[in-house]
């Protein structure tokens, strides 16, 4: 199969998930770029970001059209998020470890089960 075909499928799946669930495009793209398209690991995250940003702009257009936009919440969450991102980028350079991913994976699974039932 051609690389262009695989790239298109990867884009389609990541875009659909990101639009439908409002998240997860990057989570799909990073391993897909690495494994299916041979993008180097340290470039995969940045490249995924360059893909997900335009996709998000398109998706947001539909969400805004529906009129469900809690502006106040977005403002508070974003201000916390910017600060958290800054802290995270300093802190996690030193302490990121496989077990940290597993712990958060367990938190995510618990939240997922709560949302399903």
């Amino acid at each position, binding site marked *: 199969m051609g690389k262009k075909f695989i790239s298109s499928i990867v*884009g*389609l*799946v990541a*875009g659909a998930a*990101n*639009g*439908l669930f409002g*998240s*997860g*495009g*990057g*989570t799909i793209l990073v*391993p897909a*770029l690495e494994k299916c398209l041979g993008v180097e*690991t*340290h*470039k995969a*995250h*940045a490249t995924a*970001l*360059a*893909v997900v*940003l*335009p*996709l*998000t702009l398109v*998706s*947001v257009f539909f*969400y805004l*059209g*529906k009129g*469900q936009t*809690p502006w*106040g*919440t*977005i403002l*508070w*969450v*974003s*201000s*916390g*998020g*910017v*600060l*958290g991102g800054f802290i*995270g*980028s300093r802190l*996690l*350079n030193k302490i990121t470890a496989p077990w940290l*991913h597993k712990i*958060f*994976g367990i*938190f*995510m*699974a618990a*939240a*997922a*089960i*709560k*949302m399903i039932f």
Partner: protein
Amino acid sequence: MAWFLYVLIGLASGVISGMGIGGGAILIPALSIFCGMEQQAAQNTNLMYFIPTAAVALISHVKQGNIEKRSLPPVIILGLAGAAAGAFAAVRMDGSLLKKCFGYFLLAMSAYEIFRREKKGGTQNRKNEGMRNA
């Protein structure tokens, strides 16, 4: 005091984003479970929050030449179609059904985080991975 909870949730998901786990995996369930926000509104909040943070991170990545441009065009073209279709469906779905579907998606992502294996050695530069992403 609701704003305090929102800032706290944003803070937590911001830190998690630094690990290379999507911040939405924390932000959306937290807004839904702790704040009782409707699923579409929670997802919209994550998308809106992502735009400025990603834009800032992207500028520094472009400057450092971290973007693999050759791979981009086909991924983005079909990606845009998928993004439109996914969002079109999301805003028309019943909120509680979407919440359930999101739960299954989150469960799959959690399995990936729990069971993934760390690559050891090789030529790839692991310490640069994921740390500068929003």
